[in-house]
């Protein structure tokens, strides 16, 4: 396991990945401390629903009461972006979790056993990959009914094929290695061989992809919410918050940038969050490249 230590040290030394890690850590703190930073109204109120300060539609600029201002419908932007951090982590981690699990299982089966199993699984991934991800996700969400849960399901369904393929490819590479032959020669079962030997070596590129993908997943989820196919109106979700700003990108004549806060603030949160993960993933890739080349 010195590989991991080596990798960790590399990550910290690389300035870009360090920046990414810091960004992610800051967001993690915001998410964890959300109930303190932006206390929800009590009772049965779902804390993910942004409290409204009135019902008028016009956004209000930042003030003492609403430090980031309010967006259309008087939803507090500060509350929304803070709790939106939680939503973002939830979506990213849950989807990646599912996708990794499914991808690893199916990819390993396809790669190790080959033959018919491989063909079938590959055809299935072909089917999913023949469709632009966002549009397929849209179709799935609109059928299940828009909500953050259906966004997670849709994104998981759409993303797993790439992982299955990746794992499969790596397993294929690793399969012919000597130590695999040796294990089999010693009588180890296929399952054991896969889990203990093939997988750990195949997993690095997958990790790279996974960390890059968290950012992409959150972006897609935000896009779906923006299009009205994700979190319901008033839910603390960055994409949803941005969609509120859609009608206020131009203020009254004479003050066209009046409602800038409604547009820029939620977008900046998305940008930085995704940036953090992308920096991390990019650094991962750099670190792993020489390792792969070593093989």
């Amino acid at each position: 396991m010195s590989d991991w230590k080596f990798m960790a040290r590399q990550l910290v030394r690389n300035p870009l990945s360090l920046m990414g890690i810091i960004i992610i850590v800051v967001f993690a703190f915001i998410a964890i401390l959300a109930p303190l930073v932006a206390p929800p109204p009590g009772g049965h109120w779902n804390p993910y629903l942004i409290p409204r300060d009135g019902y008028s539609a016009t956004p209000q600029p930042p003030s003492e009461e609403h430090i980031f201002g309010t967006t259309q419908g008087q939803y507090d932007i500060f509350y929304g972006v803070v709790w939106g951090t939680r939503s973002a982590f939830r979506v990213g981690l849950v989807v990646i979790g599912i996708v990794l699990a499914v991808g690893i299982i199916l990819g390993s089966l396809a790669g190790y056993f080959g033959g018919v199993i491989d063909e079938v699984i590959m055809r299935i991934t072909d089917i999913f990959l023949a469709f632009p991800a966002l549009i397929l996700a849209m179709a799935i969400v609109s059928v299940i009914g828009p909500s953050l849960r259906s966004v997670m399901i849709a994104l998981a369904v759409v993303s797993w094929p790439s992982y299955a393929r990746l794992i499969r490819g790596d397993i294929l590479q690793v399969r012919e290695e000597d130590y695999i032959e040796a294990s089999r020669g010693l009588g180890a079962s296929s399952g054991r061989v896969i889990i203990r030997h093939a997988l750990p070596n195949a997993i690095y590129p997958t990790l790279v992809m996974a960390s890059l993908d968290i950012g992409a997943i959150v972006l897609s989820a935000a896009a779906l919410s923006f299009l009205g196919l994700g979190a319901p109106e008033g839910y603390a979700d960055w994409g949803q918050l941005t969609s509120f700003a859609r009608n206020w990108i131009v203020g009254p004549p004479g003050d066209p940038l009046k409602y800038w806060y409604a547009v820029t603030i939620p977008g900046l949160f998305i940008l930085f969050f995704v940036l953090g993960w992308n920096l991390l993933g990019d650094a991962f890739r750099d670190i792993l490249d020489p390792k792969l080349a070593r093989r």
Partner: protein
Amino acid sequence: MSKRFSKMGWIVLAALLCLSLVLMPGCTTSPAEQEEEEEEPGGPAIPYKNDGIFVAMTIGDIASLDPAWGYDTASGEQTDYIYETLIWWDGESADQFVNVLADDWELLPDGVTYRFHIRDGVKFHEGGDLSPEDVEYSFERAMIQDRDGGPLWMFYVPLLGVGGYGDVTFADIDAAVEVDGEWVVFTLDDGAFAAPWLQILCGPWASIVDMEWCITNEEWDGTEGDAPNHNNPERQDSYLFDHSNGTGHWKLNLWDPAIQIKLEKFDGYWGGAVPFDWVITQIVDEWTDRKLALLNGDADHVYVPRQYIDELEGIADLTIYKGLPQLNLDGFFFNQDISEVSTYVGSGTLDGNGIPRDFFTDLDVRKGFCYAFEYDTYLEDILKNEGEQMGSPIIDGLAHYNPDALMYEYDLAKAEEHLKAAWGGEVWEKGFKFTLVYNTGNDARKSGSEILANNLFAINPKFQVSVLATQWSSTLAQIVSGVYPMFNIGWMADYPDPDNFATPFLHSEEGLFAHYLSYYNAEVDDLIMQGRYELDPTARKAIYYELQDLAYEDPACIYLFQPQGRRYFTKYIKGFYFNTMIPGNPGPLHDMSKSES
């Protein structure tokens, strides 16, 4: 690694980036104050563009150009420009008429026979001449088509006393509309429909089409045998779906679905000069695009959702018409027989975690809810003070509206009183939970639901109502299947008669809303029937006054507001006047004009 930034430098940079996010509020002190742009008095100038062309931007595409099909405002609007009817509304009046394709008409002493004399010298866009046969054909064709959910019940009920095509024979349809020389004769089923019939004749469904042209293009050929082939067609199977041939001021030039409709001037129009060479209606869903188009002179008229009216204040080059009395009413309906498969009722019993299926049959529950709604907040924030609260379906502008009718007010004490009495005190003790549903994108309904939910919670924390958005596509099916505990829906007038409002809201069988929400009050049903057929205005007034009282005593819904409308034009458009029955938002385009001075 670059030597310029040490590692520490990167860390600091990253930390600064994150901090800046948090410290942003500090930098956000009213950029509006820092704005140095001088506000021109009266706002920006709107340039004059597109001379001779009227450009309107709206949301929502038309369903069909076939006058017999369209039952939505967008379709009605275009039909109104392309086709004409026998008579038309006189200015802003809803019960005075001017002659259009008929130049004379009379109601015979028997009270059920109308005769209309058809004008001479009127031409269709494709060259045909208007004749009484065209008129007869238009009505009969429409009745034969009678598509599901269409407007033709408005012919069937007054003429034949039945609901639709399946209830009559071809001979009946034939006899209802006949040609007598240069006259067309309508025979009504009951004298009570004499006044509404004139109003119905002004609607887009009563447009006159060219018989020969239709037959040439394989529409109904006029015989009994061919009639079943043209009954209830698919939307796109009617030739008139996307082809037009009317007598109106403009003819169809191009329909680019979901993008725009372009109409061009009909030079052979019988009535003289046509005010615009082109009428272009573009479908623009984004409010910002529409706003900027209006302010840049690229559009003469746009649809302005109510929540954005503040942005167009104080602009001298815009003409705004406000306080327009629309014949609309929204209600927050109680479902008195919720379906067993409903997922919105929590546990389904009165145990504090749900509501039973007949929850709203208890009068105290309904009254309590009616008192718990903050009408003033809704009026101020959502309607921007442009609306009138109603106590019943008979709204202002309909005959026999009672301005002193009793209405509920926001009164937490009374709400508490009724809710404490509800279901023998169990409601107050145990509390309840259920879900309010609104259709996505409808801000007013969302806010209305939230107001109700918050107020109920304020009365008693055990009253926990959650609010959920659904797609419009799911909404209708779910209304029919009765799964919603409460639902917010509205009605728009087909024709300005109190019966047209009373029935859908309150009649247990025929009422669109009352039926699906299982509202039943025998006395109300009787009164509605009486009111429909009563000829004597005094007696009719008494009936509808009583109905309004009953609507208060046995509420079917929380009656919300009759909203007042607004219309926005650039200053270059003149001649607009408001008549609530004109289908299109831009209004009586044929009486309007556009000029730079």
